[in-house]
């Protein structure tokens, strides 16, 4: 009887000593600086315009250095275009929270099959945007585009939207999630 009781007792003690040592370390020290945030932010969108006829270039910027939320954007330019003109446009996305800034648009190009830039003009007559680059499946990518402005002076907005469409890219903006969406004010004169 004594032996029968002793064995489970030792077993239980053995099991307990196993769990006792499994305490987690804690290194919680709020008064020390937080390690830098290694997650990715898209802080900045730059549109690089080249006037096809005259050849002059300029850039338009949306810049929100602390990312979503927090403080409001520090720079949000209006796009000034000449009427009845054609512009070549290239998009650059940056993470300026890192030093040096990380060019996110290069990563988008690497994963071209999962991404789509989508442009929409309101009113539609304001600017006609045509996507000039394709991914390896022959579907639109949209880092490069051509903007054709209206014949008359006009005002409105152009939405530039980057959709993340892993495995579901079908050439429309109706699938996936939005990574970037900026409504630029556009003045055509």
């Amino acid at each position: 009887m004594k032996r029968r009781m002793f064995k489970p007792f030792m077993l239980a003690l053995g099991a307990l000593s196993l769990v006792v040592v499994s305490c987690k370390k804690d290194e919680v020290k709020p008064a020390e600086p937080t390690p830098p945030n290694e997650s990715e932010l898209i802080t900045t969108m730059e549109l690089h315009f080249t006037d096809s006829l005259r050849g002059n270039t300029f850039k338009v910027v949306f810049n929100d250095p602390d990312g979503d939320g927090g403080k409001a954007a520090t720079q949000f330019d209006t796009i000034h275009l000449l009427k009845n003109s054609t512009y070549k446009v290239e998009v650059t996305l940056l993470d300026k929270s890192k030093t040096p800034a990380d060019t996110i648009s290069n990563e988008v190009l690497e994963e071209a099959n999962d991404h789509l830039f989508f442009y929409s003009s309101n009113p539609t007559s304001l600017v006609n945007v045509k996507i000039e680059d394709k991914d390896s499946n022959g579907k639109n990518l949209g880092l490069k585009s051509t903007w054709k402005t209206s014949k008359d002076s006009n005002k409105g907005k152009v939405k530039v939207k980057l959709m993340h469409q892993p495995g579901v890219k079908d050439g429309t903006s109706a699938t996936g999630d939005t990574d970037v969406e900026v409504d630029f004010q556009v003045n055509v004169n």
Partner: protein
Amino acid sequence: MKNTYIQLVVFFLFLSANSIGQVCTYSLSGIVSDIHNDAPISAIEIYIKELNKKVETDSLGRFQFSSLCPGKFTVVCSNRDGYKPIVKMFDVQDNVVYNFKIEVHLKELAEVKISTLSKPKDKLSTLHASLLFGDELEKNRGTTLGDIVKSIPGVSTLNTGNSVSKPVIHGMHSNRVLILNNGIRQEGQQWGSEHAPEIDPFIADKISVVKGANSIMYGSDAIAGVILIDTKTLPDSVKIGGEVNVVGNSNGRGGTVASFLEGKFKQVPAFSWRIQGTLKQNGTIAAPDYLLINTGLKEYNFSYELGWKKKNYGTELFYSQFNTTLGIFGASHIGNLSDLQRAFESKVPLESTSFTYAIYRPYQHVEHELFKAKYYVNTGKIGKLTFVYARQYNWRYEFDKHRPLNDALAAKNNPDLEFHLTTHTLDLNWSHVRKNGFKGTIGAQGMQQANTYRGRMLVPSFENGSIGIFAVENWLYKRWEIEAGLRYDVKQLSVYQSEKTMNNSSLLVKTSHPFEQASASIGANYTVDTTWKYMLNLGTAWRAPSVNELYSNGLHHGAAAVEYGNSALKVEQAYVATFTGLYTPNEDLHIEVSPYYNYIQGFIYRQPTPTPVLTIRGAFPGFNYTQTDAILRGVDVYTSYHFTHWLEWKVKGSMLRAWNQGANNWLILMPADRIETEFGFHWDHNQRLKHIYIGPSIQYVAKQHRVPEGSDFVDPPSAYWLTSLHIATHFRMGRNHAEIGLQITNLLNTRYRDYMDRFRYFTDAMGRNISLRLKYRF
């Protein structure tokens, strides 16, 4: 009717208070309770043979004989349905307190309702406690803590899908509801609406919910109420025993295995122990028409408890660990407001899937560790001193839907949000036993907490400290029980934020928020007779604003909202009146009605910003944390009626009106009115199956139309009906006890969305689930 035995365990033998020199003034009193779970048992007859005196236990299981002369008495504690009574001899030379522990008939266990009245230890007596144990607790085994407690009227849940479920009491949740895990305040990241309590429900042998201001004993911030999760008491007799639970669910094709082993050895009778563990996994959850992508879950938990008990002192060690990895429904993580709009407009979720057990991004990984050491010593014959230290460590990882585009970053696979929270608590209580009608407790509590984050900043790192002292006294006089308590707390929250200096280096700046205040409680119970009983409690409670309310500043990816804290927020002060009326004219009918009224000054809530917040991802609704005066009032009802011995009818209902005085409008995100009815069929006569219970039930949840106009993305969902079926049986396997239960929720596979489920924007709620559970006790 064989097989039943009545066992007697002596807890406090002849704890006596003296009153010298007088004759025939002694009393003999005590409580009759269930040997397994300490639930008090009412209407048990106690009889003194020599005097031919009889009393019945009241709804709290109490009995009392007074004006006894010194002498030897034979006391008989009867039992129901012809079970063997307990006979006990007493030599009365003083006031005698004796608690009878009885083995309740299996039928009792099976029938268990939300207990009529019961008394968790260390609770204000003038607040009504709803208790879950026995079948009522067992039937939802394998689900979350939130899903278990929502069977109590007045308790609902705030959900982020199926696996994240937070208890809501009288419309309040998160920091306004305290959860006491084995006597220790649960300290996780409870401020977040998508952060579920980090507790394994299988450690609970009994769950009590005490609605109303519970500030005195547990902490000033228990505005809405407390949920007490109690483990089984360690074995009192020499044995080795245990329990194995196996639960299988059809929806999610998941299962849970939970087991414990406990014992006490003849060689060391003071020592008792228990080890316990739970493994849980489920795959993709299904709504009636489709599967919900990435809704798998994996969980493993374990705990151990050691006790050393001597006549006048004892010590207990408890350690538990909770580890979960849970997928967040993929279609709910959205890029911006226009994605959200697209999700509402779609009839089916925008992402589909096939069944899998794998968990992908977005997901959460949470670990919680609790270590508790308790020591108590009897201070002579008059009281007991208790000292409890606990350490909790909470570790939360949240992974966004997408990996970073940058390959080097993506390869690290870092969580996008990470919190580490360590909490130390210290409790010191002294309680004295009842003397001349009075009993009470005085105590002090200290808490020190530190939180750090990595990854995206949602709330800054902080330190939190508090010290509280309290005293509560209870006076039993004839049919009255009067109780009053006072508490004083001093708290300080210090946050550390990095700020850029002139030379572009960053500097850590500390900001402190001190708070101090008193809270009070006064209440009375009046037992008219065995039919009527009233309980009234008036209490205050206050809550210091939490770190997210003060400092949150960022985008909630899942919630598609930008939240702004307000560091100027002041204390939230609550004045709470809670009443319970109990009507039990006979064994067959039980009615309890509990109206309540909360007036909360400086109620903290999220108010939409006048214009949306513009980000590079597009526009998001913005919310500012702000304060208003609010009134939350309502009523909870519970009734049960036995038509015959085999047919029982139960009705539960709750109603809440939550008004924002400042905005002169309804408060957002409050549970809708609901009512539930269940018919219970009992079979007892079968020799092999001890008891069979079949209980179909129907729940109606109204549409919540009391919402501030235009403050939500979409209108609240329609009202819905849900049906469920519960079948359980208890039987013996050899010399041991076994149970089989079948619980079918959403029996008709109804399509519905609940207002308090954040996933209602994206998907219907879970469809039919058939859950089969087996329990074997040895």
